């Protein structure tokens, strides 16, 4: 039986209710939310609202209208960066951002001549807070940070980042692609200004779903304009969220699955999932310690990291090891740069990258035991 250990890319399997919910919606409803006055369109509308409400509960968002649905975290981040930054603005970000952040910023550097400052960081992902605070005092329009690194597995201390930024009236955009659903996120107690998330990773929903939380009072320029199902006579996009940012027909099948997924998380409890991942991550690191020639990256304690561990085997090409794990052992892990080249430069693992094992709620200790046995055989062969 194959073992899936690439939950950092997308989670698998999904809760049974996700499959059921999508199939049920496709077979028995199929209407477009907000686009009709017949009962099934109204039910679709209600489903979208209930999904926003469930996400509000999960992420401690005050009002459903503050959750904007998108296709994924990348679209959410693009919406935030391109809707907020103006020519000449200065942005601070980290060295372990995913390309979902790094590439739009690079594009804006060319198109709008924004200036990007990278917060110095240790290979364990600990940011230089003294440097950060000094830079904030020089005038920064936006801080963009990953809540959790998809390579190092470190978790950003959002409370410190946000409180320092807010002392200078600088808003903070958080990329929660790796944390939403597997790590507590509370935008009320740690008042981030925008938070981007994807539906298909820790949230356990389908691909093609995601969202952006925008705090009340913060208004972005729109990334796209189009039909919203209401005020159709007006030549302009509605001014109020979420319609302001949600032009075009929604991915309602995806939202049906996401709704079931978030309900599963609320019923299970993010704390329970987090505990499970800590236990598995520690078990994994302890196992890796027994494999000769292994170097793993990021925080040494599982409590300080997400349920993902990147590592290399001495003298082995990580891509070849990943292929061998798949072909000979039916174990799926991710090798390479993980769309985060700066993180690998920080670790000194570019250009080959590393092997990444990213755990999920449905993984068990036996999966890790089989991985460790396979790595030992590969090492000795």
């Amino acid at each position, binding site marked *: 039986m194959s073992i899936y250990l690439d939950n950092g890319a997308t989670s698998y399997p999904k809760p049974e209710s996700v499959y059921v919910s999508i199939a049920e919606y496709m077979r028995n409803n199929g209407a477009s*939310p907000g686009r009709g006055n017949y009962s099934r369109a109204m039910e679709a*509308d209600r489903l979208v*609202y209930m999904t926003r409400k469930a996400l509000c509960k999960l992420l401690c968002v005050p009002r459903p209208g503050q959750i904007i649905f998108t296709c994924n975290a990348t679209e959410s981040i693009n919406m935030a960066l391109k809707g907020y930054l103006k020519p000449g603005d200065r942005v601070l970000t980290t060295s372990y951002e995913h390309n979902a952040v790094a590439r739009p910023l690079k594009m804006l550097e060319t198109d709008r001549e924004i200036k990007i400052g990278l917060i110095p960081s240790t290979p364990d992902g600990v940011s230089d807070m003294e440097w950060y605070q000094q830079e904030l005092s020089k005038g920064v329009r936006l801080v963009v940070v990953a809540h959790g690194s998809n390579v190092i597995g470190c978790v950003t201390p959002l409370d410190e980042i946000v409180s320092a930024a807010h002392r200078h009236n600088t808003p903070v955009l958080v990329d929660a692609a790796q944390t939403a659903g597997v790590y507590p996120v509370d935008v009320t107690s740690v008042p981030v200004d925008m938070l981007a998330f994807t539906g298909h990773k820790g949230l356990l929903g389908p691909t093609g779903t995601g969202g952006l939380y925008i705090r009340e009072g913060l208004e972005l320029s729109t990334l796209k304009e189009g039909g919203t199902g209401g005020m159709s006579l007006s030549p302009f996009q509605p001014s109020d969220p979420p319609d302001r940012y949600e032009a075009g027909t929604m991915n309602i099948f995806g939202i049906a699955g996401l709704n079931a997924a978030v309900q599963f998380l609320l019923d299970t409890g993010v704390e329970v999932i987090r505990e499970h991942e800590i236990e598995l991550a520690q078990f994994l690191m302890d196992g890796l310690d027994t494999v000769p020639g292994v170097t793993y990256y990021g925080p040494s304690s599982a409590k300080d990291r997400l349920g993902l561990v990147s590592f290399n085997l001495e003298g082995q090409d990580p891509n070849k090891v990943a292929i061998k794990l798949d072909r000979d052992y039916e174990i799926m892990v991710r090798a390479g740069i993980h769309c985060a080249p700066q993180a690998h430069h920080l670790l000194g693992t570019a250009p080959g990258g590393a092997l990444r094992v990213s755990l999920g709620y449905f993984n068990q200790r036996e999966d890790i035991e089989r991985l460790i046995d396979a790595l030992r055989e590969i090492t000795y062969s």
Partner: protein
Amino acid sequence: MFLQSINVLDVDLCVQQPDKFVAHTRASADLREIMPYLNSMFRTSTYNHDAGSIKFTNDKIEYTIIGDKINIAKFINRTELHELLDWLKDLVNDTYDSRSEIIPMYVCRKPVPVLFIYNLLPKTNCQQCGEKSCMVFAAQLNKLEIDIEACPILSEPEYTANRRRLEGAFGAFS
């Protein structure tokens, strides 16, 4: 639970404010039983016991309930509509659960006449309240779409008596 759900039947543009919407909905229970209690709680309500209808305003949103039919007007989008439906459902159920502690009101409130209000205002047309004139302020207050506190001159000592009469007029009905 007294009220299980409120289902949206249709959504249309609001005639009075074309940049807002109106929705026609149906509740899972007839709400006549709860209306005298809602009437007691909302000073903006217009209640007709014989017809089994009540109309009230909350946060600039208008609610009209006739039996199990509920019309909601002046919301900005469907997300807000569903928030309002959740709020209304909770309100009805909380009111139903607490009805032994609320004194029901079976008669319709009478609005305070615009001229009665106007005669107690400073008539300076200073616009400090945000309205164009004292007459417009009086009309707004008559519809309870502005607070007495919005007129700063009414807080001055020489207007204490007028202010008290106004508060009394509204307090008598609230």
